[in-house]
């Protein structure tokens, strides 16, 4: 049944697919994850602060982000970020940031909502006595969080954080709506140029599967290793 297929197109386009496409996908995944964990942790601390003026905006932000389709956010930010940049810097024209920065900002802000909920669960999983013990030693709130609560929460939640990162890795393919050359974008361009849609999309699916599956196996092994002995 594969007689009509030309799998040679894959070999020919490998450098383009991986050097251009996958590099972009992985860079976007890594940077967005890093940014989203930092921002998400901050949101989680805000939500758990117990101060309504701080907690409510964070809760609202998280609920908003989780209620809007990601594709829509990618579109929105692509058109909005230049204007926000203009507004912040007071420039006379919308600031062109390019598709990469725009998608990075989108994914960071969007994923932060999910990482916030993960970190919130992680922080809540730390017994209150740990906070009391840190305070009793004279630690301030930032010290208590920085040295005692967050390191433990982070370790407890590491498997979930990485699983979310795998989802993020798959979601980055949505940047095709901005005609960016990520891995899927590259495959799609080759597919249309050479008229080899089935081959290229099959290959792309296989690559996404291989990477995601390998990563989740790794997460499962890691899970057993990082668990804190209590």
């Amino acid at each position, binding site marked *: 049944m594969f007689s009509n297929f030309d799998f040679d197109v894959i070999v020919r386009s490998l450098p383009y697919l991986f050097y251009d496409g996958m590099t972009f996908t992985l860079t976007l995944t890594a940077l967005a994850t890093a940014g989203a964990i930092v921002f998400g942790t901050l949101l989680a601390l805000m939500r758990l602060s117990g101060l309504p003026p701080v907690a409510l905006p964070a809760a609202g932000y998280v609920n908003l982000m989780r209620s809007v389709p990601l594709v829509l956010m990618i579109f929105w930010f692509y058109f909005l970020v230049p204007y926000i940049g203009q507004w912040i810097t007071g420039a006379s024209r919308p600031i062109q940031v390019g598709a990469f920065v725009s998608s990075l900002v989108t994914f960071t802000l969007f994923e932060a909502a999910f990482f916030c909920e993960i970190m919130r669960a992680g922080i809540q999983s730390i017994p209150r006595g740990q906070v009391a*013990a840190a305070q*009793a030693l*004279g*630690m301030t709130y930032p010290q208590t969080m920085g040295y005692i609560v967050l390191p433990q929460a982070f370790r407890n939640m590491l498997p979930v954080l990485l699983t979310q990162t795998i989802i993020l890795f798959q979601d980055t393919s949505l940047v095709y709506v901005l005609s960016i050359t990520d891995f899927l974008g590259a495959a799609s361009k080759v597919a249309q140029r050479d008229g080899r849609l089935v081959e290229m999309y099959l290959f792309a699916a296989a690559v996404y599967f291989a990477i995601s599956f390998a990563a989740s196996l790794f997460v499962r092994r890691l899970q057993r290793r990082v668990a804190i002995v209590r």
Partner: protein
Amino acid sequence: MITISHVSKWYRDFQVLKDCSTDVEKGEVVVVCGPSGSGKSTLIKCVNGLEPFQGGTITVAGISVGDRKTDLPKLRARIGMVFQHFELFPHLTVTRNLVLAQVKVLGRGKMESEQRAMQLLARVGLADHARKYPGELSGGQQQRVAIARALAMDPIAMLFDEPTSALDPEMINEVLDVMVALAADGMTMMVVTHEMGFARKVARRVVFMDHGEVVEDAPTAEFFGQPRSERARVFLSKILQH
């Protein structure tokens, strides 16, 4: 050293502490006892401001705990506290548990902090376990590490919140021995405990609480010899029976 005067505390409508007063002088050991839910743990947590209170005042070394202007972290750094469930930091080694606050709160050098940590671990008999994680130690060992961690801050007074209640019976004595030695060294101690043997041996005074009130505050011999209140008599007869 510690003066508690007319302290009251409410959880919404429920009053957990009712006009509690007592004091602990420098070098004195005071045991606080009473039935579960009598408010004794809550009271001791008010002393270093872990629990807020609405009425009355508590002063430690002349500093008012309830005062909004008081730098609570700074005050807490000078008061050691030992918890029922140890609350060692499970992600740090025993040594790091003792060193962390010395470095980050007191601003001590790393070398000096580690020396002090080793010195105190030797004192509680756990020098060999310095590199282990808390999860690798028994309950009694963990509680001794917790005492060493509090002592590493060179506190002016120590608060113990039921330090042996979560321990298996065979581990209680190793912790009490450390506390007795500490008392013998002249440490100011306020101890919430059910260990009446310990109270008899080292406490100068016993404070008996029930339903959020200080019912009795008497010298140890007097408290065990002829308790004035009926409630204290009932309590003592219940826990001294066996």
